[in-house]
């Protein structure tokens, strides 16, 4: 029964993606693609932050790694030679070449490998230390991208990335990410992650290797964040180091907090709400006109609204939309 329901849901989603790509105008599709990419990022960020309970602030770093790897693999050699204006590109950059799907997967693997090495220092600490070390990592990636023009073209970034990521690819990958995340949550690893989140000492006492579980969650999360980054690079066709600032992490944090830390369906719903809300509140960043007086443009107003939203949510509705439950068993007494 459940299997039939799930297969029907998947087919319905695929049909919607196909229908949307062929019917909607490019503006709607760009919003939908954006939502799809942020859904991938929020779902994977939720795995480490919500499910495994390791509050970290690094997704912008992993997204950047994925985006740069994918962009370099997708760009044709002669375009690279023309683009690198500051210094000549390193030979390896010119040699790197791959098709679209292998390119984004390599981006994901690269992010995942970095996550593996990063887990040794960061999982020696818990709580707020973890948060600030991972935050620092996000900064270092950006500094690295700016200071190695032979590999990244420095602050100018990469342009003219082939635009292979249409809504069909993004939608399908988001769907796959969601299915994999749900499977992880209800697997032995997912239960181990939740036990680490709820009581690390008790989990250790039960024989769970907490370091291994955290690293596993971190690497999985990084893999999908890297893939999301690759899709982002291909969708936008332009990337610069400044795109991967803490702002990106902050948006993802709002999404997973609104959805309920640990709830994958919550993250999905919240992605639609927040990204839709960002689009809807765009007028706040434009010129504000009150009674015919032009107060001028104030970029950043949207983020003021969202930071107030985040604080209010933490003060009054800490559980978010779904708590740590999933939509399809929301009315069950206890989450699994």
């Amino acid at each position, binding site marked *: 029964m459940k299997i039939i329901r799930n297969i029907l849901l998947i087919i319905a989603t695929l049909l919607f993606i196909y229908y949307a790509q062929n019917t909607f105008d490019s503006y709607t599709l760009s919003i939908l693609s954006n939502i799809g990419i942020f859904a991938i990022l929020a779902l994977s960020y939720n795995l480490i932050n919500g499910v495994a*309970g390791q*509050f970290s*602030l690094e997704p912008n770093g992993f997204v950047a790694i994925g985006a740069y790897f994918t962009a370099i693999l997708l760009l044709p050699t002669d375009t690279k030679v023309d683009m690198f204006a500051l210094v000549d590109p390193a030979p390896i950059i010119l040699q790197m070449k791959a098709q679209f799907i292998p390119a984004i997967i390599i981006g994901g693997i690269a992010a995942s490998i970095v996550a593996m090495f990063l887990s*040794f*220092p*960061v999982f*020696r*600490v818990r*709580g*707020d*230390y973890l*948060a*600030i*070390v991972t*935050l*620092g*990592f996000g*900064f*270092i990636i950006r*500094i*690295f991208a*700016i*200071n190695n023009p032979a590999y990244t073209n420095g602050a100018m970034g990469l342009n003219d990335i082939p635009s292979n990521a249409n809504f069909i690819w993004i939608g399908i990958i988001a769907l796959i990410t969601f299915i994999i995340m749900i499977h992880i949550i209800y697997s032995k690893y997912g239960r181990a992650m939740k036990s680490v989140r709820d009581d690390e000492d008790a989990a250790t006492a039960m024989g769970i290797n907490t370091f291994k579980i955290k690293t596993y969650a971190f690497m999985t999360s990084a893999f999908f964040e890297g893939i999301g980054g690759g899709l982002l690079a291909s969708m936008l066709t332009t990337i610069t180091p400044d795109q991967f600032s*803490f702002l990106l992490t*902050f948006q993802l*944090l709002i999404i997973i*907090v609104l959805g309920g*830390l640990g709830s994958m369906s919550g993250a999905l719903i919240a992605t639609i709400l927040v990204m839709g809300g960002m689009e809807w509140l765009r007028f706040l960043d434009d010129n504000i006109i009150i009674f015919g007086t032009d107060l001028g443009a*104030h*970029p*950043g*107003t949207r*983020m*003021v609204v*969202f*930071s*107030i939203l*985040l*604080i209010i949510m*933490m*003060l009054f509705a*800490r559980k978010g939309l779904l708590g740590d439950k999933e939509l399809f068993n929301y009315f069950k007494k206890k989450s699994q």
Partner: protein
Amino acid sequence: MNLDIFLQQLVNGASLGSMYALIAIGYTMVYGVLRLINFAHGDIMMVGAFLTFFGTSAGIPFELAVLLGIIGSAAVGILTDKIAYKPLRDAPKISLLITAIGISFFLENLFTVLFGSTPKAFAAPEYLTKIFHVGEIYLPISVIIIPTVTLLILALVLWILYKTKYGMAIRALAFDIQTVKLMGIDADRIIMIVFIIGSALAAIGGVFYAVSYPSIDPLMGIIVGLKAFAAAVLGGIGSVAGAVVGGFILGFTEIFVVAMFPELGGYKDAFAFFFLILVLLFRPTGIMGQDLERGRF
């Protein structure tokens, strides 16, 4: 590197380290009493620098403007605690962290919206920027004044902590908040005092920053705040003296590495995190810290 240049860099390092130290004290004290990394601390420093800037632009004498910045920052610090942290004292740590990030982002974006994101030139009074020379080296007077003032402030903070009743209460709070409440001490009042001290020092650090790099912008608090936090961890979080030692080590390293290996100049903002990661790998309690779980002054 000859001796003249070495001395010059030494003084520059001391001046930079002083700023990190002043901001790190706030991190370490708040961490001591609340076990919270106050993510908004760097932005409170930014508020202090901005208020001082507005004061001087409005024609108020520099010293009074600094006082205005200190009072304003302390007020923002108190408000942050009352609005965002106090209702969550019994909530899971993660909620507190998220509100702290919310406050930090709120302050950064509010100042961007109100005053624009373009850096503003900060006019320091002449007696701070005057250049003097000893032998071959030319330095602004501020590089001497900043470390001196910092050491005086450190002495004052240590005096408050160890010689006054409030200081005793702060240290008691760092050990065990429940027992302190049972002893009849108003814990929230003491926490407020910690926020006042931390924010005031951050404001002074912000003014020093603005004097040394004569421009300010709404996002200046992020990277300086992170580095100061790294300094606090390096020195051993929870230890005020450690925060100062960590701040100076970080300041000297930044200046000397860039002086000796100019090609690493672009990475100077990353040194703090290499330090942080090294400390966490080999000595998570820092140089002067004793026990992470029970940070003490």
